[in-house]
């Protein structure tokens, strides 16, 4: 059963949660990405494993952490190690191939490359952001990455001001030519749509638009155009998904607002 009453943030969290399958190791960041990971665990992928770059594995997240170093990620985990162990686990193909990651960015381009560093000239930036953190590492190693974005023209750009985290670089096999393994962002979840990367060209295309949003409106909010021929309307969250999200995952509404 579907619900008409939900926020865009709830929609985004559920769209991301649906990408996660049982057995996946879910690399979670802060904010809505952590909520999506928790939602998957509580709704559709109980045997997914929450994993933090700080080194915590399979934490019992009773309260939503506000950072990946929040003590709430340390409770009741299978292991509390450190950054080296966490990134090694993703770089190593044996475990790394099971990882699905959720990332955010200030800018994304048509090939799923991300900017989390700066706007303007790198040496004299107009706006400085936090920097890569683990983003560049995750985008380098992890076969499946979800990017969370606000669907705005200044965020879906023709050319990134700084390429922090590699996606398909320039498409057409340029990722592998640079030395990277297959991977990087393959799904983009926004407040209007779900976009994916074409496995042939490496270019973004519109996979699903949310109820009440047209493909044209989506194109109007991007600096580059994408293929909309494959687009369908996204399946909205079910009552059950929403109930779990609200009551089990973020009862304090720290992320849902």
């Amino acid at each position, binding site marked *: 059963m579907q619900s008409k009453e939900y926020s865009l943030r709830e929609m985004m969290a559920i769209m991301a949660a649906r990408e996660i399958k049982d057995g996946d190791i879910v690399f979670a960041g802060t904010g809505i990405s952590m909520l999506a990971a928790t939602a998957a665990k509580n709704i559709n992928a109980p045997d997914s494993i929450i994993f933090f770059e700080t080194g915590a594995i399979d934490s019992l997240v009773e309260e939503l952490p506000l950072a990946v170093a929040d003590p709430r990620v*340390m409770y009741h985990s299978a292991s*509390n190690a450190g*950054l080296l162990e966490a*990134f090694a686990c993703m770089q190593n193909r044996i475990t790394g191939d099971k990882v699905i990651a959720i990332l955010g960015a200030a800018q994304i381009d048509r090939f799923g490359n991300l900017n989390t*560093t700066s706007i303007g000239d790198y040496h004299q930036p107009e706006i400085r952001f936090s920097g*890569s953190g683990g983003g560049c590492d995750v985008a380098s190693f992890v076969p499946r990455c979800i990017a969370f974005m606000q669907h705005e023209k200044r965020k879906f750009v023709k050319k990134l001001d700084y390429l922090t985290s590699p996606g398909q670089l320039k498409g057409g096999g340029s990722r592998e030519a640079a030395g990277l393994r297959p991977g990087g962002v393959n799904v983009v979840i926004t407040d209007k749509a779900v976009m994916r990367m074409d496995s042939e060209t490496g270019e973004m295309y519109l996979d699903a638009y949310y109820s009440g949003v047209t493909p044209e409106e989506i194109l109007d909010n991007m600096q580059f155009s994408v293929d909309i021929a494959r687009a369908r309307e996204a399946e909205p969250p079910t009552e059950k998904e929403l109930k779990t999200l609200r009551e089990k995952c973020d009862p304090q509404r720290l992320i849902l607002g």
Partner: protein
Amino acid sequence: MNGDTSKVMSIETAVSRFMSDGAHISIGGFTLNRNPMAAVYEIIRQGFKNLHLYAHSNGTGVDELIGAGCVDKLEIAYAGNGKTAATCIRFRKAVQEGTLKVEDYSNFMMSLRFLAGAMGVPFMPTLSGFGSEITTSWGFSKEMRQADPKIVDDKLVIMDNPFGRWGDASKVLLVPAINPDVTFIHVQKADTMGTCRIDGLIFADTEQAKASRQVVITCEELVDPEALRDYPERNQIPFLHVAAVCHVPYGGYPTAVYRHYDYDATYLRAYADAAKNDEKFKSFQDKHLYGVKSHQAFLDLVGQDRLTAIKADSRTGYAVNMKRG
């Protein structure tokens, strides 16, 4: 035997003994957790300048040091502080105003650089970062690097895998070792010889300590060496690496120390609010930093109510249902 307690000293003494202007330093912890804040505040109060700071994702401590004008050069992966500041505010301001030179790496790269320093090798290899502008945009120019013997000539090096396609890799990216002059680490428990036992996540503290020429430990509890010999597997930093041990309860405040106290969301928000405006920030610093003579005086100013509110629950290790919104 080994009953030597000469490493035990106050944080004031340790900072004045091991710090110097222009020193290359590193601080432990991650964003809002287990930053060595008592050490950071003391470095600021003692007025050390022109520091070269290495960090991976240290938020709170890094922003305070930058905000106080102590740091000239920063090598870092991430300057954010959880929900209170997606980008550290004084850091952003300093970069945008051109008063801080930054060299960007990723979290793994910075961790590997500390590991290389700890292991005594010139670099560590990774498969991270090919195609990223981290490899091509250098915050420190080649000229600046060559002019300073304490800075490595190359930010990083990319080379073909010398073992063919072994390890499913065509190329490798090498990141250079870091060996800070001094590293400050805050832990739950240390003994008088300097051996440390950390609860919860280690972040990269072990590697930071082992890479460093001098290590200053602040701890919630200072114990006799005997007390940590029951389960040596739990001691992550052996005394060999440690120069000073300082007993500073709440030495990580306002960041969290697992099983002891949570972060103080109220304080971090007040800091973030003040940090947005130069004048407000100056009065915030005057009150909380320069207006107090010691970490204890700072805690007295904050008040017992706030410390009680962040007290860790014994089951979970954090303050359950604490107001954080």
